């Protein structure tokens, strides 16, 4: 079964064709990072216009002329409304023209399914950690498409914390890779707080950000590389320890990482060295927003006979529900 996935929830205009939810035949992404770098962040109006310009060329590259499709999966949320509808309308048009079944996909569940695009088949029960600019969610899955939300961020998401730390240290955008690169040149010698929130699987990185800001504004000679390394150490410490604790409590057979921050090498290394169970993570291109994960997840929905009508609409504030 070949599924076309379409994703336009945030920065990236993406389309991909995936076979049986596992094998990406094409995986096209037109990134807007260069445009956004000039503005120091995402500008939704720019994003929306860029999606409109990019969607047709991206689709043409993702779907070769001789490619037979069996269904279409498109992100319906969470994301920016103006961006989401570009992908949605493209998906509806193709569905109508080709008579193909259409399903709407939650971007967050799709991030988890990026892990099925690799060579290893994840085993249930599993714990998934979704870490990106907008999310830090800890999820328990005992079977396909069923999610128990164990914890989420109470304030700043992990990716947002990296972004703000990069801004505080003057390291540039996007913040995650900037911190990772700077941390490589420094040592984690600066003591920063670890927000554990004992007794809960929630995360909170706001206090850590405040601590870094206070440190930098109080002491003039803070080495930005050491500060970046120390900040990265604090964030990854908390993410790894809390995830492992959940994995032990629920007898998880695998830990899955997902979302843009899952591309962070320090986070991967730490998980691999500290976890007693196998840790699976997507290759970097499938950690950040992409359409292969939408198609992989859509395959399972379509296989169950789910089918959306043309009234399918964007849900900007969609969350993962238990």
């Amino acid at each position, binding site marked *: 079964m070949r599924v076309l996935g379409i994703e336009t929830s945030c920065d990236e205009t993406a389309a991909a064709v995936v076979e049986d939810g596992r094998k990406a035949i094409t995986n096209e992404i037109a990134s807007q990072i260069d445009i956004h770098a000039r*503005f*120091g962040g995402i500008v939704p*109006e720019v994003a929306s216009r860029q999606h409109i310009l990019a969607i047709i060329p991206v689709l043409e590259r993702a779907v070769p002329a001789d490619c037979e499709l069996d269904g279409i999966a498109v992100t319906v949320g969470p994301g920016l409304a103006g961006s989401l509808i570009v992908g949605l309308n493209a998906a509806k048009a193709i569905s109508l023209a080709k008579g193909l079944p259409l399903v709407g996909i939650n971007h967050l569940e799709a991030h988890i399914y990026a892990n099925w695009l690799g060579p290893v088949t994840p085993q249930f029960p599993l714990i998934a950690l979704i870490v990106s600019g907008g999310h830090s969610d800890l999820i328990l899955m005992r079977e396909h498409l069923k999610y128990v939300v164990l914890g*989420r*961020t*109470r304030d700043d*998401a992990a990716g947002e914390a990296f*972004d703000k730390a990069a801004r505080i240290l003057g390291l540039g955008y996007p913040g995650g890779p900037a911190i990772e690169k700077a941390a490589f040149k420094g040592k984690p010698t600066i003591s920063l707080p670890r927000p554990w929130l004992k007794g809960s699987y929630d995360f909170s990185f706001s206090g850590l950000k405040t601590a870094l800001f206070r440190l930098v504004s109080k002491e003039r000679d803070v080495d930005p590389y050491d500060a970046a390394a120390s900040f990265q150490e604090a964030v990854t410490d908390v993410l790894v320890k809390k995830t492992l604790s959940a994995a032990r409590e629920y007898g998880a057979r695998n830990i899955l990482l997902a979302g843009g921050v899952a591309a962070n090498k320090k986070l991967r290394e730490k998980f691999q060295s500290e976890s007693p169970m196998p840790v699976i993570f997507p290759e970097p291109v499938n950690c950040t927003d992409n359409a292969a994960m939408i198609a992989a997840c859509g395959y399972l929905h379509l296989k169950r006979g789910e089918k959306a009508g043309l009234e399918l609409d964007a849900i900007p504030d969609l969350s993962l529900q238990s």
Partner: protein
Amino acid sequence: MLLNSKSPEETREFGRHLGLLASPGDVYLLVGPLGAGKTCLVQGLASGLGIEGYVPSPSFVLVRELKGRLPLYHIDLYRLENPLEIENLGLDEYFYGQGVSAVEWADRVLGSLPEENLLIEINYLYENSRQITFSPHGKRYEGLLRAFKNQLSKDV
């Protein structure tokens, strides 16, 4: 009006009182450095509006709509820098709607935000304490601040 807050809890409590008094169409602009407690105050505002659950930072998603006694539009301009681009965002739909708008990092585009508003500036004093300045712009907000003062004096 000047208030000193000794803790995030106290900042949240100020926000909660404001939430109890909020009316449809209210616009609160929040200004202050990273980590000052802007999101913290909005979390209190949300609880005063009867919103349950977490109020995470909207920095990455730009706008979060939360459902309470009145809708709360939690807006964050942190990632935006070009005022021209911000003017194109269509935020007016929120400002002139039936909900309460709370805008973090409002100083990035003060010129293109509603002239009538309650400006809330939070600054660091030391460690956990902050100085919070409330400046009303317009009759509605002068009245709101008077009621806010009364509420707080009753609370003590």
